[in-house]
C-alpha cells in the first residue's frame, strides 16, 4: 500500500514538472561543481599517500639528532640509562620480536583452526542434523537458524578484536597473572634448567603478555584465513571428495595448500599487529630492560618503551625516543607491506583461475 501511494505521489510530482526546466544541459555552476568535486576526491586520495610519507618523515626528522649522536650502536647496545645519556634498544627489539613470534605461533594455530571450523560449515551442519533429528527441518521459522548461528559465531570471533587492548591489559593484570602464577612457578621449580622456564613469574612477564597478545591477533588471522578458504574454487573440493578423500584429507591436501598464500598473508598481518600492539604489553610485560628467553621473566618491547617514556619525556629524550619509534616503524612497515603484497598476489592468483 505504502509503495503504491508513493508511486502515485511521484507520478503527480513528475506531472507538475515543467519540461523546459529539467531537460537542459548542466548549468555552468553544476559543471564547475562537478569539476571541483572530482578534484576534491583526487586531492583526498592523494592525501592518503602523502599522509604515509608525512608520518614517516615527521618521525624520522625528529630522530635525526639522536641518530647523529648514537648511530647504529643504538640498535645493538643494551643499556638504557637517561642519567648517563646511554641508550640502547636491543632488549626492546628482542622483546618485541620474541613476544610477537610466540603470539603468532599460538594465535595462528587457534586462528586457522577457527577459520577451518567456520568455513567448513560444521556448525550449520550440526544444527541442521539436530533439527532433522527432531523432524524439524525446512521450516520457515528456523530454516535460517544454521546460517544465523554461523554468522553469530563469526561475529563473536570478530568481537574478540573489538575489546580494547587496555581492557585486555586490565584483565591480564588482575585475572590472568594471579591465575597462571602457581603453575608457572611449579614449572620453574621442576624444569628450571630449561631456558624457557629459567626464572620465576613474580608478576608481569613475557607469558601473560604473549597470552593476551595471541588473543588479540587471532581474529585478524581467522578473518583473512577464512576468506582465503572460502574463495577456494568449489570444484577442487568436489574433485577431492569424488576421489574418495575424507574431509580432512581434503582440507589438508587440497584446501589448505590452495589457500596457503592467503593464510600466510593473514599470519604476516597478525604478526604486524602483534609488533605494534602497545597497551596490553605495556601493562603485562613488566618493562624490564632485559635480554631474556625465559617465559616468566619481565621484559620490554619497543611500543611499551614508547608508551612508558613519552608522557614525561624531557626535550633531550625526545630524539632518542623518536629513534626507537623509527626502528618500530621500519619493522612494522616492512612486515605490513610484505603481508599486504602476499595477500594482493594471492587475490590476483585466485582471480586468474
Amino acid at each position: 500500500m505504502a509503495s503504491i501511494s508513493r508511486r502515485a505521489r511521484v507520478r503527480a510530482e513528475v506531472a507538475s514538472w515543467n519540461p523546459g526546466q529539467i531537460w537542459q544541459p548542466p548549468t555552468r555552476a553544476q559543471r564547475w561543481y562537478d569539476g571541483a568535486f572530482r578534484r576534491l576526491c583526487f586531492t583526498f586520495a592523494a592525501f592518503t599517500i602523502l599522509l604515509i610519507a608525512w608520518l614517516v618523515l615527521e618521525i624520522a626528522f625528529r630522530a635525526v639528532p639522536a641518530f647523529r649522536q648514537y648511530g647504529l650502536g643504538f640498535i645493538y647496545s643494551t643499556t638504557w640509562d637517561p642519567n648517563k645519556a646511554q641508550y640502547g634498544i636491543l632488549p626492546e627489539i628482542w622483546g618485541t620480536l620474541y613476544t610477537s613470534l610466540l603470539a603468532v605461533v599460538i594465535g595462528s594455530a587457534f586462528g586457522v583452526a577457527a577459520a577451518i571450523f567456520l568455513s567448513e560449515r560444521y556448525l550449520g551442519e550440526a544444527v541442521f542434523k539436530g533439527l532433522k533429528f527432531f523432524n524439524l527441518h525446512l521450516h520457515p521459522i528456523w530454516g535460517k537458524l544454521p546460517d544465523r548461528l554461523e554468522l553469530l559465531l563469526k561475529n563473536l570471533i570478530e568481537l574478540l578484536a573489538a575489546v580494547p587492548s587496555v581492557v585486555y591489559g586490565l584483565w591480564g593484570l588482575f585475572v590472568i597473572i594471579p591465575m597462571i602464577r602457581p603453575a608457572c612457578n611449579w614449572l620453574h621449580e621442576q624444569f628450571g634448567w630449561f631456558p624457557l622456564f629459567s626464572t620465576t613469574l613474580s608478576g608481569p612477564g613475557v607469558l601473560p603478555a604473549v597470552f593476551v597478545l595471541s588473543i588479540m591477533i587471532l581474529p585478524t588471522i581467522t578473518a583473512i584465513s577464512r576468506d582465503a578458504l572460502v574463495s577456494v574454487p568449489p570444484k577442487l573440493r568436489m574433485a577431492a571428495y569424488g576421489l574418495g578423500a575424507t574431509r580432512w584429507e581434503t582440507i589438508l591436501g587440497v584446501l589448505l595448500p590452495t589457500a596457503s598464500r592467503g593464510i600466510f598473508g593473514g599470519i604476516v598481518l597478525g604478526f604486524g599487529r602483534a609488533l605494534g600492539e602497545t597497551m596490553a604489553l605495556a601493562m603485562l610485560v613488566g618493562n624490564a630492560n632485559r635480554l631474556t628467553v625465559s617465559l616468566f621473566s619481565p621484559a620490554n618491547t619497543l611500543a611499551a618503551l614508547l608508551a612508558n617514556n613519552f608522557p614525561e619525556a624531557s626535550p633531550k629524550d625526545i630524539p632518542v625516543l623518536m629513534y626507537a619509534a623509527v626502528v618500530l616503524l621500519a619493522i612494522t612497515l616492512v612486515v605490513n607491506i610484505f603481508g599486504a603484497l602476499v595477500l594482493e598476489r594471492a587475490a590476483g592468483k585466485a582471480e586468474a583461475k
Partner: protein
Amino acid sequence: MSENSISSKQELIPAQDSPVPDPLEGVNFGELELSLYRPRTLFSVILSWVVAAMTFLALIPLFAVLWMLIWRGGQRLSVALFTQLPPAPLEQGGGFGNAIIGTLIMVGLAGLISVPVGILTGVFLAQAKDSKLAGTVRFAAKVLTGFPSILAGVFAYGAVVLATGGFSAVAGAIALSILMLPTIILTSESAIAMVPAKMKEASIGMGATGAQTVWMVLLPTAMPGILTGIMLAVARAAGETAPLLFTALFSNYWLASNGRVDLMQPTASLAVLIYNFSGMPFANQVELAWAGALVLVLIVLIFNLIGQSLSHPQIHQQ
C-alpha cells in the same frame, strides 16, 4: 551394512580373461569403508572435534573478559560515575564524567576529520578503479590498517604537541583520525563498488554530472555499508589508548571551565583512565578502572553491533 554393499559390488564385475586389466583389482574395499575403526576416518573425525574445541576455546577469553567486567565493574556502576570527577589518591567515591566527555569529544573530532576524507577517497577509489593512483591509494590504506596505534601517537606528538607547545584534545583527535581513516576508506570503497552498475549508468544516461551521480545515487545506495565502516572505525578509536597517552595526556578536571570549552588543554579519556588507575595501589582507583572498562566496552560493543547489523541488512530484513 557396508559388508553387504561391498560383496555385491564385487559380484557385479565378474573376473574375465580380457587383456584390459580390472580397474578394481587390488583395491581393498574394506579400507574405503566409512567407519571409525578405519584410521583415515577416525583421523578426520578427531581433527573435526579438535578444530571445534579450539574455536570454542578461542571464544572463552571474550566471555571471561565480559564476565569479569560485569562482576567487578558492575559493583561500582552508579549515576555518580557519570557526573563526578576522578578521585585523588586515598579519596573515596568519585567517577569519570570528564573522561567519558573527553573520549566522546576526541572521537567526534577525529570523525569530523576522517569521515569526509575517507568517504571521498573511497568515492575516488570506486570511480577511478583501475588508475595507477587508485591502486597506490588502496595499497596505502591497507598498509595503514596495520599501522601501530602508538606510532600515530608519536606522529601527533611531533606534528601537534611539539608544534603547539602542549598536550591537547586536538592532538589526540588527529592521532585517532589517522587510525580511523583506512577503515573508512576501504569500507566506503567496497560499499560504493557494490552499487549495481546499471544504477550508475542510468544516472549518467539521464544526464547527471559525475558529482550528481555520486551524491544522489552512489552515496545514498551505499550508505549502509559506509555507515558500517564509520561505526567500526569509531568503535576502534574509542578504545584506543596508546595514541592518547602522550597527545591528550589526562586531566582530572572538566574540559569546560568558566563556560568555555578549551580544546587545547590536556583532556581525559576513558581508555587512559583505565590504564592510569589500573597501576595504582589504591582499591578505589582499581574499582574505578574496572567500572571504566565496563563502560568503555559497552560503548565499543554498541558501535560494533550497530555496524555489524547494518552490514547484513538482507539477513535482518527477512
